[in-house]
């Protein structure tokens, strides 16, 4: 049941600043809770200029939403939910699950690996290394067959076991990789029978591939340390060579989302849920439709972790061959792997009382603070690492969760820079320019399956990620630990 008038008829949204880094949209119309946006003076003006505030208000209308509809500073317009949005719903209070609150690319995420290599070790060798990585990790439209395609039976095992399947059954990686992956690379409740045949078929050949859009594989060098003790605990100092991998669940995840949007459109009518925008289509968590989506979503999340684990293995092989090093000397260890498009059940204190909530993070990253029992023991003293990629010409950040995250954002922080320019505009801007040459001038070697993607993803198309992470640090949600400068990037 959609009531567009509830949206268009809503009084003009008025932002009310509550502190230096947070603005509130008081509830109006069908909003059940306020909207709360983390930003600074400049970012909030950008945010006001697109329709994402309207989307923050729309999400606040969802049944069972708790506390507030939240937006991180890298918020931009998305389908139904804004990208950069966080919404926690309470299953015990009729709370809903919405595929639009997760996104098409289920468990799109980032991982970062550190190495024993120093900046000087790779000088003059980056182009050859990027060529080797570009051959090993298929990227772009139709990319497939990085490894032998899986049978349907193998796919079923993988969809339940996630990254564990890649490590234990395929021998690609080690137990330490699993310990340093959010949820150990395996979300419970995955049921492959809830995925369509088409979803599984699309996944069979795409394991170990990047895809395109904003996905990438990047070699970066640590160029600034903000917290030396934490950086040391993560195994890096200035000059350490790292590898970042950003991708998700590929065609399998997109198919799961498509399949369940149809299911949810029917569920909205069946359960009489009134929504201001049909893209927020959802079902009660405690309904057949809600639990079916969650079972299929967990499969796609597991596929994404398996995908990033496979790419990790392929990248390690390239590095070992290029530098004639064994695994011990290369020391290419996973620092952490985070998802930024997922819904998960987590316990949070609400008004002094613990409640199990379904936390939707769409373009937002979990950021648990030091001491939290849900992060691996080896990282517990410093807090959960959070990886925030910037654009491919500037820098990316590694943060850790801070105590404010549990108080203000259901343990969530930002996920990236956020676009400021449309893809069409970025392409126009790029006409007649030597983009690869410009990036080379900045010291970045780029290999790309599609030149047009490079034009769309040029640094000027994005906000400065430094502004975004600064807001979250100022709000007490996450702390900056170190910054990386890219030296080599593979784009799809």
């Amino acid at each position: 049941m959609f009531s567009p008038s509830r949206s268009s008829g809503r009084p003009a949204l008025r932002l009310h600043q509550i502190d230096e880094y947070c603005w509130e949209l008081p509830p109006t119309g069908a909003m059940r809770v306020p909207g709360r946006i983390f930003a600074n003076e400049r970012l909030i003006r950008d945010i006001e200029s697109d329709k994402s505030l309207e989307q923050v208000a729309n999400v606040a209308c969802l049944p069972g939403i708790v506390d507030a509809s939240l937006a991180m500073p890298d918020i931009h317009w998305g389908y139904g939910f804004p990208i950069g949005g966080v919404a926690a719903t309470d299953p015990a209070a009729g709370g809903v699950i919405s595929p639009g609150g997760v996104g098409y690319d289920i468990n799109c995420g980032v991982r970062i690996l550190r190495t024993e290599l120093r900046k000087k070790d790779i000088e003059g060798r980056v182009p050859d290394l990027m060529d080797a990585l570009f051959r090993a990790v298929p990227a772009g439209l139709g990319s497939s067959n990085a490894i032998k395609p899986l049978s349907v039976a193998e796919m079923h095992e993988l969809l339940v076991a996630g990254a564990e399947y890649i490590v234990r059954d395929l021998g690609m990686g080690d137990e330490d990789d699993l310990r340093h992956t959010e949820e150990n690379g395996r979300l419970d409740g995955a049921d492959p029978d809830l995925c369509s045949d088409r979803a599984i078929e699309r996944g069979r050949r795409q394991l170990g591939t990047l895809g395109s859009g904003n996905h990438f594989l990047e070699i970066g060098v640590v160029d600034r340390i903000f917290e030396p003790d934490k950086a040391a605990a993560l195994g890096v100092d200035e000059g350490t060579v790292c590898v970042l991998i950003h991708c998700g669940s590929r065609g399998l995840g997109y198919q799961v989302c498509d399949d369940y949007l149809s299911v949810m459109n029917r569920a909205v009518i069946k359960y009489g849920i009134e929504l201001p925008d049909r893209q927020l289509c959802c079902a009660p968590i405690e309904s057949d439709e809600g639990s079916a989506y969650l079972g299929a979503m967990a499969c796609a999340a597991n596929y994404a972790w398996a995908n990033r684990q496979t790419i990790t293995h392929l990248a390690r092989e390239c590095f070992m061959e290029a530098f004639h090093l064994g695994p011990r000397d290369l020391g290419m260890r996973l620092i952490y792997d985070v998802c930024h498009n997922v819904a998960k059940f987590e316990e949070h204190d609400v008004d002094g009382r613990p409640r199990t909530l379904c936390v939707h993070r769409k373009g937002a990253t979990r950021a648990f603070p030091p001491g939290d029992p849900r992060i691996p023991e080896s990282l517990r003293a410093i807090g959960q690492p959070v990886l925030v990629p910037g654009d491919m010409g500037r820098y990316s950040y590694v943060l850790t969760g801070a105590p404010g995250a549990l108080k203000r954002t259901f343990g969530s922080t930002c996920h990236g820079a956020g676009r400021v320019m449309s893809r069409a505009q970025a392409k126009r801007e790029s006409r007649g320019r030597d983009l690869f040459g410009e990036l080379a001038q900045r010291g970045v070697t780029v290999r790309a399956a599609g030149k047009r993607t490079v034009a769309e993803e040029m640094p000027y198309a994005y906000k400065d990620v430094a502004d975004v992470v600064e807001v979250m640090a100022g709000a007490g949600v996450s702390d900056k630990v170190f910054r990386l400068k890219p030296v080599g990037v593979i784009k799809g």
Partner: protein
Amino acid sequence: MSASGHREIDHTADLSFELWAESLPSLFAEAVLALGDVCYDRAAVRSTDQRRLEVRGANPEERLVRWLQEVYLVLESELWLTAAATDVRVEDEVIVGILHGEPFDRARHTLHTEIKAITYHGLEIVQGDGWWRVTVVVDV
């Protein structure tokens, strides 16, 4: 403005194209061209092979989304590039048509971008006096 056509329009995070045609079948044929232009250099694709496509949907918008989903899946799964669609017919809840194209050839073809989804965002097929129009947002 010609009888049928398409153009990319600005959209912050994703891609969007506007289509217009003189009939609903022509609009569906035009949509195939627009999707091709997003994903590869369509001008270089020859119409050497054919395949029949049939989709079902409860309303015109759902049929358009499913039609484009099928065209895209042929591209993703088989790297078969569509140059054009002809003989498009609308029969109750079914759209039938013939795709013309060929398998990807690295020497001649340039691929652009993968897409995640054909979305329902703001999707509304509008009909006027002798014209049909729609804007499609594609998640990339």
